[in-house]
């Protein structure tokens, strides 16, 4: 068991113990937490188990001499919770630390703001305050502000310093300038015993901006957390057969070239390689978009992500050479990425414009008043301008809307993976769909089951129960309503079909060849199975890939909005045409390779179209990258989900239209918020230039505009009921 310590999923801790994290997606309530923690905690060899409901992970501290990872997964399974070992990404600790730092800064800024306000409000009221008390209040405020600014200001100072060093400017430069200048000017004012100081304004500014920063950061961290969970669920550990015949479980990406990997029945192939031993049907629908499985024997290449359907196979791992499919896909993805061009977020575009304007305005104010009156007045008024223009409302305008939108989408089962995805989505005018697994469910169903004699269906269903082949699963599902006979001595022959005996007579289910039907018996129109009971005439079963629920409505809605809808399929042209016809898509192409899809997207782009690509297969991944913005269903391959900007869970394609409508409303609300923030500046800046902005006016204007912006963003949540009904 000493190997467990070397396992990368396990982290050694003090006292000879080890700690592992397990992903438990089905945990969702207090009872689940109690069952997991008590169930595991009572086991021998487990020191403690702690469930985290937010991340759906359980961290277990155990004795590696008494237990191993498989044992832990087995114990959780026995409690009724299927679990997957989870290996946190390396940068996880980094984002956690960043979130913590922002939260500490936020807390300190909040503390400082409240306590300085305590003094400021008394000074503003000030009717019965003498000079000495006012001075005392100012100095205490200065002390608190020093603490607040030196802690809470750091995220801004650091970022401003970084860009200044490279000779650029961003939003953080005027912010830092306003905070630091106002602090030192206020110290000077306090020394003179003047009436107005701006200690409260500086820390309040930091407080509001930090709220925006923290929300923004948390949303992104949450999205990447969810994406990591998805990937961990898909990541299959590889079972490597060592030279001495022992088996060892390790993460697929650590398997070395030339190693021999065992792929059990019903498992996904974890690596690219060549079959060394065994024959089985391989379902490659996630990789190629082809619904029908192919038979793989000795010497056949198999790809990571494909599903092994009927027999265990041993695979010799190939290096990530240029010839592998994954390498080709990755190369295409990299090329597509370069062609995409950098998208500049609205807020950044505004900030680029805003920062220089603010600097110039403050400088002009200073110089003008210096000329007209004196340097002191000029400085104070320039500081007032910097404080007023500082983008409290702007800093909140985008993050708050984004957070509300992300919350809405999460409820609908949609994960945001790219921070600027919603913004890009709002501008699209063309939607390109993949077929298999996107417009269709990617699984086959029996056509017209009522036309088949119920006895035949029952026999086929009973026999099919022995196989994981998609056609067999479909037959078994169709027959599951009735009683099915029992079979003896059932064998599955990869690439052919199933044989079994019922009361001594042979029953066969499978291909034409398997049951002995000639090619001329019936023209083959699509996926099919034949059943032969004893000497009776063979019975034909035909299959088709079901259309995803909500697909027709989603496409109708898109068309009604004047969006061009297109179908690009890797499947054969006839199949693509049939699906396109059923869904009313006029523009379709079949038989597309990954590079054909990219070419089609480039063509659209050349015509000036902004394309949303929806796809699930590995073969769609490059196209997802090449498109302006992309969506993948959660049933897609892991590479696809990494490439996509959004991932939706659940079966219905309505998620796409919901996403689109939320993206549009998000953009509108963001623009409204910008409008409000800028409108406030238009009113307040002239006042500041003219010297009418006392610290009190600044405080009211800052908090007022921030509240208005937040309230406006919350409207996105309120209008929910009507939209869901529509």
């Amino acid at each position, binding site marked *: 068991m000493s190997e467990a310590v070397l396992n990368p999923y396990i982290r050694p801790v003090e*006292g000879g113990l080890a700690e592992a994290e397990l992903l438990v997606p089905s945990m969702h*309530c*207090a*009872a689940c*937490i*109690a069952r997991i*923690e*008590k169930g595991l*905690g009572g086991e021998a060899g487990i*020191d*403690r*188990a*702690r*469930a*985290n*409901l*937010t*991340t759906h992970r359980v961290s277990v501290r155990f004795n590696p001499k008494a237990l191993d990872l498989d044992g832990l997964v087995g114990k959780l399974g026995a409690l009724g919770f299927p679990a997957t070992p989870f290996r946190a990404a390396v940068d996880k600790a980094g984002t956690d630390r960043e979130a*913590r730092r922002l*939260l*500490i800064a936020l*807390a*300190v800024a909040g*503390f400082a703001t*409240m*306590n300085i306000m*305590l003094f400021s409000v008394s000074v503003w009221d000030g009717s019965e305050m*003498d000079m000495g*008390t006012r001075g*005392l209040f100012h100095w*205490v405020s200065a002390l*608190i502000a020093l603490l607040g600014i030196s802690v809470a200001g750091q995220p801004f100072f650091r970022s401003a310093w970084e860009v200044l060093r490279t000779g650029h400017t961003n939003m953080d430069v005027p912010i830092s300038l306003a905070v630091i200048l106002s602090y030192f000017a206020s110290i000077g004012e306090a020394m003179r015993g003047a009436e107005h100081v701006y200690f409260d304004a500086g820390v309040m500014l930091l407080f509001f901006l930090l709220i925006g920063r923290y929300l923004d950061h948390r949303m992104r961290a949450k999205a990447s957390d969810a994406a990591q969970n998805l990937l961990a669920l898909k990541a299959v550990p590889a079972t490597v057969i060592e030279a001495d015949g022992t088996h060892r479980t390790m993460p697929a990406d650590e398997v070395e070239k030339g190693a021999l990997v065992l792929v059990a029945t019903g498992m996904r192939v974890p690596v690219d390689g060549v079959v060394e031993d065994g024959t089985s049907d391989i379902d490659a629908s996630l990789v190629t978009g082809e619904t029908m499985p192919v038979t793989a024997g000795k010497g056949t290449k198999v790809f990571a992500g494909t599903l092994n359907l009927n027999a265990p196979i041993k695979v010799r791992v190939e290096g990530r050479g240029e010839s592998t499919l994954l390498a080709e896909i990755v190369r295409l993805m990299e090329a597509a990425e370069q062609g995409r061009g950098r998208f500049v977020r609205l807020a950044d575009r505004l900030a680029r414009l805003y920062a220089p304007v603010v600097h110039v305005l403050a400088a002009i104010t200073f110089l003008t008043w210096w000329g007209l009156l004196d340097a002191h007045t000029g400085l104070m008024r320039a500081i007032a301008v910097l404080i007023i223009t500082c983008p409290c409302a702007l800093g909140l305008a985008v993050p708050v809307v984004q957070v509300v939108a992300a919350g809405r989408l999460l409820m609908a089962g949609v994960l945001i993976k790219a921070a600027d995805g919603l913004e890009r989505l709002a501008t699209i005018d063309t939607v390109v769909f993949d077929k298999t697994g996107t417009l269709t469910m990617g699984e086959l169903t029996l056509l017209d089951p009522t036309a088949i004699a119920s006895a035949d269906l029952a026999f086929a269903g009973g026999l099919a129960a022995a196989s994981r082949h998609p056609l067999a699963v479909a037959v078994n599902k169709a027959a599951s309503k009735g009683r099915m006979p029992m079979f003896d001595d059932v064998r599955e022959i990869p690439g052919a079909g199933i044989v079994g005996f019922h009361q001594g007579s042979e029953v066969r289910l499978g291909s034409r060849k398997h049951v002995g039907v000639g090619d001329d018996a019936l023209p083959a129109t699509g996926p099919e199975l034949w059943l032969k009971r004893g000497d009776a005439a063979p019975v034909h079963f035909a299959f088709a890939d079901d259309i995803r629920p909500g697909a027709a409505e989603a496409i109708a809605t898109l068309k009604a909005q004047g969006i061009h809808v297109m179908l690009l399929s890797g499947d054969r042209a006839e199949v693509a045409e049939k699906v396109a016809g059923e869904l009313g898509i006029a523009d379709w192409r079949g038989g597309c390779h990954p590079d054909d899809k990219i070419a089609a997207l480039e063509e659209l782009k050349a015509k000036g179209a902004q394309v949303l690509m929806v796809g699930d297969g590995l073969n769609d991944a490059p196209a997802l990258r090449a498109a302006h913005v992309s969506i993948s269903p959660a049933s897609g391959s892991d590479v696809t989900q990494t490439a996509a900007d959004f991932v939706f869970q659940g079966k219905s394609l309505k998620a796409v239209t919901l996403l689109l409508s939320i993206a549009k409303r998000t953009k509108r609300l963001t623009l409204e918020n910008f409008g409000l923030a800028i409108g406030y500046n238009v009113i307040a800046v002239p006042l500041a230039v003219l010297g009418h902005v006392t610290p009190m006016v600044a405080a009211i204007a800052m908090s007022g505009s921030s509240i208005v912006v937040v309230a406006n963003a919350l409207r996105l949540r309120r209008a929910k009921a009507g939209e869901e009904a529509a």
Partner: protein
Amino acid sequence: MSALLFLIPIALFLGGLGLAAFLWSMKSGQFDDLDGAAERILIDDEEDAPEGKDSDQSATR
């Protein structure tokens, strides 16, 4: 006005206490699982809660 001389330090001290409590609770991981914290109150007996076990770990191990 002499009341201010001790009222101000008291006010600041109490505020600082709140800040310190927040920073402590964050450092000790109480904000790591907010959804779980909301649900845990429904679990009946907490006598062998992980925290308890943590603190007397040296005794058991």
